């Protein structure tokens, strides 16, 4: 689907007639606007639909259908049939605003518990979503999500995760899902230097594919406090002149873990960009809602700043260009609110 500038165009002009001599109420521009309103992939343009569809008479609608080959086709039938996959697509797009509203209104614990469930029930599983939940929430927030999970599903997050993953992934994801990190600022500088060296040795000197077997890397990432890890990140950069997450690039889940723990705004701004670029998956698109709704009260200012820095355009501008209708307005309002906090 093409992305076009979304403005509704109501044009006052003389009544026109089509080939069959029927009255047409809408202009080609309005047809185009209507087409855009139906095209997603981030919501639907309710305003256009409201104004233009109401204006349309049957002749206009026929013209519209005949001129929207991506949505309708009349190859086999005697009429312009709505393409069934587009119909499904459109249903989903109508629901985007609804889902955003529900996510915003729902108790954060319930919301996160549902997301945890989803992360491993999707095929393929969304490990980065689980990592995001476990690492970007505070200890108390994620504990709340774990309680809600038990309430909803009569089992603990730990058993749910452990039984669905194996090997290294199990060790990392179960540890992340069950940790209750110290959230304070006290750190042991000497220990940090030591553990920074351990990480450096494991990553730079030992074979890279042995990292998964390295208990110390796992221990440090899954038990140390966030402030501690941010300090190690800095120490690592000073000692080895590279970023920890870049050096772990081969192992996606480790890289996501480091990003989520040490610099959530960087992680989130990347996800937002991916959601609004060309050809994202449905999961990647949904992340747009999730990130905006869940971070508006936390660190939206930092995310917007990082987004601007990295992608050269203000976040609000990108959303206004990519999204439609109420969904767009809702997201933009949440971003503005987050930035004002």
């Amino acid at each position, binding site marked *: 689907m093409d992305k076009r500038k979304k403005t509704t165009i109501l044009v006052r002009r003389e009544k026109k007639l089509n080939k069959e001599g029927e009255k047409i109420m809408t202009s080609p521009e309005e047809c185009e606007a209507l087409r855009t309103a139906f095209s997603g992939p981030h919501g639907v343009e309710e305003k256009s639909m409201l104004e233009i569809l109401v204006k349309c008479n049957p002749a206009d609608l026929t013209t519209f259908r005949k001129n929207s080959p991506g949505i309708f086709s009349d190859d086999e039938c005697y009429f312009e049939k709505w393409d069934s996959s587009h119909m499904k697509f459109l249903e989903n797009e109508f629901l985007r605003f609804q889902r955003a509203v529900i996510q915003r209104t729902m108790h954060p614990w319930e919301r996160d518990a549902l997301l945890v469930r989803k992360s491993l029930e999707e095929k393929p599983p969304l490990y980065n979503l689980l990592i995001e939940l476990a690492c970007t929430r505070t200890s108390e927030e994620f504990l709340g999500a774990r309680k809600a999970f038990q309430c909803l599903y*009569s089992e603990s997050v*730990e*058993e749910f995760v452990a*039984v669905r993953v194996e090997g290294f992934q*199990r060790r990392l994801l179960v540890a992340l899902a069950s940790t209750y990190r*110290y959230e304070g600022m006290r750190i042991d500088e000497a220990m940090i230097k030591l553990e920074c060296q351990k990480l450096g040795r494991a990553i730079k000197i030992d074979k890279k594919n042995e990292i998964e077997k390295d208990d110390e890397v796992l221990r440090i990432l899954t038990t140390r*406090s966030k402030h501690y890890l941010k300090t190690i990140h800095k120490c690592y950069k000073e000692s080895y002149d590279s970023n920890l997450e870049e050096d772990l690039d081969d192992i996606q889940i480790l890289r996501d873990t480091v990003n989520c723990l040490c610099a959530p705004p960087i992680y989130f701004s990347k996800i937002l960009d991916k959601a609004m670029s060309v050809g994202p998956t449905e999961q990647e698109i949904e992340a747009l809602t999730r990130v905006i709704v869940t971070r508006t009260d936390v660190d939206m200012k930092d995310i917007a700043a990082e987004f601007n820095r990295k992608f050269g355009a203000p976040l609000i501008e990108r959303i206004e260009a990519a999204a439609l209708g109420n969904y767009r307005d809702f997201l933009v309002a949440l971003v503005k609110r987050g930035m004002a906090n």
Partner: protein
Amino acid sequence: MATLLAPEDFSPGEDAMALNKAFEGWGTDEKTIIWILGHRNADQRKQIRLAYQEIYLEDLIKKLKYELSGDFERAVCHWILDPVEREAVLAYEAIIKNYRPDYRVILETALTKSAEELLTVKRTYQFLYKRSLEEDVASHTAGDMRKFLVAVVSVYRYEGEEIEEEVAHSEANILGDEIQGGGGSGGGCGGGALKGAEEIIRILSTRSKPQLLATFNYYKQIHGTSITKSLGGDPADEFSAALRAAIQCIKNPKRYLQKVVSHSMNRVGTEEDALSRVIVTRAEKDLKEMKDVYLEKTGRSLDDAVASETTGDYKAFLLTLLGNQDYF
């Protein structure tokens, strides 16, 4: 039920002054200390600490540490703490103080409590030591022991009563494969090295307690022997010993603690730390039931055993906590 005998009326100020008098002069009047502190519940002890701080501008615990010594001092200084604080302190000492962490204390801390109680201990631990319990356990252990202990300490277990029979059955088989598949013996009496540890750790550290009990029952049905027997009795294999201890603790915490107490007095010399720990931590909870279990299993009363295996002020203090009035 508790064994502690504490009066309803008391005056924290008077107690604080009496304690201070006991510290004065040559030596210390241990009997007064035992008489007062050994007959005060947690709330009362807290008030006494506050009163002492107010009147004498000194921390009562610091004073006790200075005035007393040995096993008696350790028992009293643990006793005087608020119960949750005490659990955090015991865990810390078990991890940090010795050259090797005492895994039994860590398992007791984690497995004799509800999920919420364990959470409260972890919060208190963070408050006291500015690190999480998980990170300290992790950084002082290694290998399978680390994986197991960290997992057991971290989990926020589901507390519902539901049991999934199919899962219990299948996990009993999985446990059998890991335990009996190793060492080449394949027999019912284990003793060989474990084939692996991933699944045992997963099952023991994530499943709810009712679910685990069902799994242990199926294990016995399928393999003809209890899971603890299968894990063998090689004392050099610390990891298997830890697994056994965890399973026993999950099956029956009171019986497990009774064993800890029996064991502490069974050797040449007594393991005072273990003995104190159990008596001090359970005196206000269920030490009475434990005494019954002890009598049933050993044919001897716990009071008699403690009286014969310990001496001096330490003995007097433990017996007071056990509910003896007439020891003076």
